[in-house]
């Protein structure tokens, strides 16, 4: 099916060949595309790279408008005034360079100091460009590092001797990495790894340089496009959020219902056992960086739990937030898991060795990923290279995510003990921090504006530099909310941004993470917003609801908060409230006063 042609693992040649019909298909879908301006500054031919990147971005719900520099003019475009680029106001700048753009390489007669100088000068050529781009456009930069040279003059010594080109490339790459470590809006597109993984011999076939000035072989272009698109979609919050896993022949070799716990292979005693152990370890590592785990298996529940409790297994029942082990069809299990995790199925990666199960799930859940993982020896490679969980911003929240979800399940269990919902809320002993933006939370705040889709009144997306600007701007009233209760801390999970307009405050942004819904946090936020607004002589608060495919739940939110409808259009409604009429709504959360 054409809709799966871009899903990993894709056939690069087919993607190139059918690019026109794939693009038409993607554009014809009823996705509400996120429109982004993307500048590609090339140190070599970029034409097909742009076309492939466009396909993968469309597949991720992002519609790009491109600026492409004239052949090889990446540095000039970055350093000097460029009307076209300035008028475009890029959201992302991609610098497509390669080792073909290295001006000076060490020669065998150079000494230590000379080579150090050469290296720094080469590095600074790039660093001043990045600093300039940031100053002019204040947007994320995606920069290729360097692939290894396709010949080694010094043979094996080429990598350890300072005169070797390979050694020089490696040192340059380390300097690029250091810059990336210091700037959270700067991302390395690791073509050093990509080319090695693809096969450096094929990737760097010089024929494509001599004939077409491509710094890589054309068959690898879809891989490059896919890699860049992974970084971009991660920046805009479009990573998948959960792995939903089958059990038999996916997490162990064999069928636990037939073979018994002693008959399945997992652990270091056998080859198959080792293969599955490595896979279980990989999944566990994903959990540690914030990926949620669930089980979707055709098994009696007790057999599934027994299999997961195998002494040699790394993954235990507690590692999974939801375990669906039953004889229902896997598709309805997926929908139940989605409801229980308060997520949509299109944020899942369904991992199952059975193609028939994958097909059913794919057909009924548009946007879900269900890769052909092949045989056990390939599982990790397929899932890893697809880039479902590409990291651009590892926050404390990501690392603690599974813990937070678990705590939520404990809350749900507590709720079942109370018949009066208000009493339940009081029993949670909730406290909240509701304050103006603090620089320490800016990355998380930006991340939230890109990830939250359901409780989001206007779905305005902000980059980190946008949030930094708003934080310094006196025209705005800004609040973040951090909710804690006796089970744990939910972290920063709600944001309100209001813009002052005389005596009116326009709410430009109001969003809240699913995990703190139905706790009356929105009431506490509104109490604080009113309090803040009245300090500036505001007498009216105006809010707007922009309808999207995902935010139906907040259609009447302003009404429930006591606002009156003032304007009704097809996709928007506008609401208003007079501060003089307002009475505090929150009676269950203790809000800490700022120092």
């Amino acid at each position, binding site marked *: 099916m054409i809709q799966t042609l871009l899903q990993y693992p894709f056939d690069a040649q087919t993607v*190139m*060949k059918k690019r*026109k019909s794939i693009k038409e298909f993607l554009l014809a879908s009823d996705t509400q595309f996120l429109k982004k301006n993307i500048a590609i500054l090339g140190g070599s031919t970029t*034409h*097909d790279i742009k076309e492939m990147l466009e396909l993968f971005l469309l597949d991720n719900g992002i519609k790009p408008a491109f600026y492409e520099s004239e052949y090889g003019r990446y540095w000039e475009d970055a350093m000097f005034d460029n009307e076209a680029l300035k008028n475009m106001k890029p959201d992302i700048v991609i610098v497509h360079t390669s080792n073909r753009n290295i001006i000076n390489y060490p020669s065998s007669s150079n000494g230590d100091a000379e080579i150090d100088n050469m290296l720094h000068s080469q590095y600074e050529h790039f660093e001043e460009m990045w600093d300039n781009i940031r100053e002019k456009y204040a947007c994320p930069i995606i920069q290729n590092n360097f692939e290894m040279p396709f010949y080694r003059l010094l043979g094996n010594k080429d990598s350890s001797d300072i005169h070797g080109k390979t050694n020089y490339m490696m040192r340059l790459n380390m300097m690029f990495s250091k810059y990336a470590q210091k700037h959270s809006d700067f991302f390395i597109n690791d073509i050093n790894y990509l080319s090695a993984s693809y096969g450096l011999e094929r990737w760097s076939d010089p*024929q494509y340089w*001599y*004939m*077409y000035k491509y710094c890589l072989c*054309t068959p690898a272009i879809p891989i490059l496009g896919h890699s860049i698109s992974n970084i971009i979609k991660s920046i805009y919050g479009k990573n998948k959020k959960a792995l939903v896993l089958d059990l038999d022949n996916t997490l162990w070799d064999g069928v636990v219902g037939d073979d018994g716990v002693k008959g399945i292979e997992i652990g270091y005693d056998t080859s198959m056992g080792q293969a599955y152990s490595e896979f279980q370890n990989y999944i566990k590592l994903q959990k540690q960086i914030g990926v949620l785990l669930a089980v979707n298996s055709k098994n009696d529940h007790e057999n599934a739990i027994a299999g997961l409790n195998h002494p040699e297994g790394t993954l235990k029942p507690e590692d999974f937030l939801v375990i669906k082990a039953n004889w229902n069809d896997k598709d309805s299990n997926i929908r139940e898991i989605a409801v229980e995790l308060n997520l949509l199925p299109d944020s899942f990666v369904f991992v199952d060795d059975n193609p028939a199960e994958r097909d059913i799930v794919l057909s009924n859940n548009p946007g879900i990923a269900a890769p052909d993982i092949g045989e056990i020896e390939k599982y990790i490679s397929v899932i890893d290279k697809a880039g479902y969980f590409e990291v651009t911003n590892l926050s404390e929240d990501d690392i603690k995510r599974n813990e937070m979800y678990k705590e939520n399940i404990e809350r749900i269990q507590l709720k079942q003990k109370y018949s009066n919902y208000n009493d339940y809320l009081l029993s949670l002993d909730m406290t909240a921090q509701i304050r103006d933006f603090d620089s320490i939370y800016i990355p998380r705040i930006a991340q939230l504006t890109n990830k939250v889709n359901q409780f989001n009144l206007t779905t305005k997306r902000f980059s980190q530099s946008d949030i930094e600007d708003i934080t310094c701007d006196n025209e705005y009233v800004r609040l973040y909310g951090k909710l804690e209760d006796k089970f744990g801390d939910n972290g920063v999970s709600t944001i309100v941004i209001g813009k002052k307009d005389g005596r009116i405050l326009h709410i430009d942004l109001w969003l809240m993470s699913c995990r703190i819904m139905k706790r009356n946090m929105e009431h506490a936020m509104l109490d604080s917003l009113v309090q803040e607004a009245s300090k500036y002589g505001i007498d009216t608060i105006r809010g707007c609801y922009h309808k999207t495919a995902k935010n139906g739940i907040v259609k009447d939110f302003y009404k429930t908060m006591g606002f009156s409808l003032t304007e009704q259009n097809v996709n928007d409604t506008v609401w208003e409230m007079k501060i003089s009429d307002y009475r505090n709504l929150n009676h269950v959360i203790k809000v800490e006063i700022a120092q």
Partner: protein
Amino acid sequence: MERTEILKRVNEIFCEIFDDDTIVIRDETTATDIPDWDSLMQIELVAEHESHFGLRFGMKEVLNMKNVGEMIDIIEDRATK
């Protein structure tokens, strides 16, 4: 494989790549005969013929091909599919 058979298959490939059923390929056909045939299309045409006929063209061969007929000569000689 008969040369006429090769020509027929090559014609099909051109029609597919250019998304145009009306293209008719002859030995004398060159890039100037088809409007969309630029250096980037060239890359695709070469790759598709290589894949379809199971052979690789050398760089010099590609640079020296004066028309489609010369490409077919090489295919006649080295095709494995």
